[in-house]
């Protein structure tokens, strides 16, 4: 891969520039296996064309990454696609799509710290990929909703059957979605926000 650091002309298109009044940002992480539609979902709701940020893993990664059997120094670049939604003149919401493997989470220091919550995007053809992700989010105390991306050839599962298969508590919302649709992807984010709202209300009441 190449780094284009010295090109002076790179930057957002004029319509993608944030207003001077933008003072704070929040983030939501979209987690899912390879090919589940994370970038599609991000692209559907993002006001900018999804961008790619990257991180490199060199020897510094030893200890957090499983490099057993790797003897010579190597560099791995991993990429993460993200998009943006301006909530109002001051607040900006960023959406990061990240692979489900935990080694990526270590690499992206602080990805989940300060995140409002997460969306676990599930492909019912490969449900097993989601088990680990859900377990890790629960360990980290990251609130999440599960969104089932509908693929034409995917088996139809009633929501409650999926809840059982994923061993999800009754309180965690599961929604069906079509990641290609802006309205459907927006509704997934809305489901997460409603869930966070209910969590916050419970916290305040207790």
């Amino acid at each position, binding site marked *: *891969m*190449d*780094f*284009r*650091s*010295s*090109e*002076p002309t*790179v*930057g*957002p298109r004029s319509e993608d*520039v*944030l*207003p*001077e009044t*933008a*003072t*704070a*940002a*929040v*983030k939501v992480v979209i987690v899912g296996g390879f090919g589940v539609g994370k970038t599609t979902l991000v692209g559907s*709701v993002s006001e900018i064309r999804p*961008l*790619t*940020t*990257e*991180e*490199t893993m*060199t020897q*510094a990664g030893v200890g957090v990454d499983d490099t057993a059997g790797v003897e010579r120094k190597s560099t791995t*670049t991993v990429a993460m696609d*993200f998009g943006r*939604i*301006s*909530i*109002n003149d001051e*607040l*900006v*919401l*960023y959406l*990061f799509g990240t692979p489900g493997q935990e080694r990526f989470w270590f690499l*992206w*220091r*602080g*990805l989940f*710290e*300060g995140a*409002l919550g997460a969306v676990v995007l599930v492909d019912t053809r490969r449900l097993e990929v989601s088990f680990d992700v859900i377990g890790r989010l629960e360990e980290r105390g990251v609130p999440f909703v599960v969104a089932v991306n509908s693929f034409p050839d995917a088996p139809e599962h009633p929501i409650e059957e999926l809840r059982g298969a994923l061993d999800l508590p009754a309180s965690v919302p599961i929604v069906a979605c079509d990641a290609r649709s*802006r309205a459907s992807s*927006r509704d997934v*984010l*809305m489901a997460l*926000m*409603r869930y*966070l*709202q209910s*969590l*916050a*209300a419970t*916290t305040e009441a207790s």
Partner: protein
Amino acid sequence: MTQPGPGQAWDEGGPERLYVITGGRSGSSAPTALDLVTLIVATSGPGPGMQPEQAAIVRLCQRPLSVAEISAYLGLPVSVVTVLLSDLLADQRVTSRPPVPPAKLPDIALIEAVIDGLQKL
């Protein structure tokens, strides 16, 4: 002219180049806590003698831009961008607008603001 031997060819994208850009420092030693969504705003235009990568950041950040976007537009890893930003912050070439602090989450007013925003999509 001496040809570089196997494995000695200059690799534009290799870790050595990134090492040079950051003066040998890695993101972990950066003194400033920068989130992927910390917004960065330049205080002025690029100055003379500024490192090209830092000048590029200052040019990009004439309006607020997140750390993740800076990384994406410059094609540089986040850890490298973080080191460059730490220097720019120390020199007061840029200012940072930190994300909403996690301690305040979940904050009902914030969640409601996001819901309002999403409803307008």
